[in-house]
């Protein structure tokens, strides 16, 4: 089974029915998969903090949300994470394309990559790093953990996990 299908299956199995996305080349396949799932309402957002607002509203409306975005968005959303998602204690799985890691072809992506884990740690956000394809097996447990503790949780997925963005 493809990784994209497996991720969408895990989202659906965990009753996640509202997903917002800001695209990244690495995430194109999973975004397309989500778009085609009847169980998931897919709403693209123009900026990641906007997307987190949508997710906060969806959760208060009784749906389980998720956001799919690139790690550069951590720089955009620190305030929203602190004063909305964490302050009101809301669950939010964040499936994050971890650009700027091994096999990255674009040098500038490394500039945010070196800050990504430090920022997440500073925010006390539980963080998981998918580096090998088999790491995806933990996704189901991570999603359950997120809705158990009502916190934002980061799942960093690097180029090696996606099969090598840099090799394309």
């Amino acid at each position, binding site marked *: 089974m493809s990784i994209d299908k497996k991720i969408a299956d895990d989202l659906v199995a965990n009753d996640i029915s509202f997903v917002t996305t800001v695209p990244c080349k690495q995430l194109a396949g999973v975004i397309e998969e989500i778009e085609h799932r009847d169980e998931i309402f897919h709403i693209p957002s123009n*900026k990641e903090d906007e997307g987190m607002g949508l997710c906060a509203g969806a959760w208060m409306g*009784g749906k389980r949300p998720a956001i799919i975005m690139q790690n550069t968005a951590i720089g955009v959303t620190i*305030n929203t994470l602190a004063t*909305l998602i964490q302050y*009101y204690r809301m669950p939010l799985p964040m499936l994050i394309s971890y650009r700027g890691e091994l096999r990255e072809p674009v040098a500038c992506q490394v500039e945010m990559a070196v800050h990504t884990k430090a920022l997440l740690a500073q925010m006390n956000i539980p963080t998981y790093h998918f580096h090998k394809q088999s790491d995806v097996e933990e996704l189901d447990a991570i999603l359950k953990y997120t809705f158990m503790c009502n916190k934002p949780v980061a799942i960093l997925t690097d180029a090696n996990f996606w099969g090598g963005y840099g090799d394309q």
Partner: protein
Amino acid sequence: MIRSEILKDIAPILRDQLVVCNIGIPSQELHAIDDQPTNFYMLGTMGLASSIGLGLALSQPKPVIVIDGDGSILTNMGTLPTIANNVANNYILMIIDNGSYGSTGDQPTYTGKKTSLAKVAEACGCDRVIECRDVDTGRVLQEALDSGEMTVMVVKCDSGNAKMPVITMDPVIIRDRFMKAVAAE
């Protein structure tokens, strides 16, 4: 009229509806005028009231009224295309457009100059956009509720704030009682 006078005017309409209220003085004013469990007050995060309200409207059937501001929409302008392209007919975005950043000391915004938020909303694809005067807010809001159509209201009014206390309620309590009100029959 200034914002607090409008909120007093429309409080009887807001009372029974789910309301998502913008950060800062708007939330303080609404809280002081008529605190309700059906009110979600934003205590932080500039600009996201319209997005939170849209997510809420798309996820459950009750009407949702967002009380937003011109400064807040300007800071999250990307919200309008998302609203236009994901139609929720239980969603009313009421932009109180006083041409100033009220909560920070009434510094002027561009909507008091050349920028028209109603035209921006229309250009973004919002189908029912109504710009109105402050004195007509209640009538236009009631018509929006009755229309059963997604509506963006731009209420042109005077700049100024009422002196109201800061909200000291815990955010988790605000959120929890709001969610119970959303889920109530």
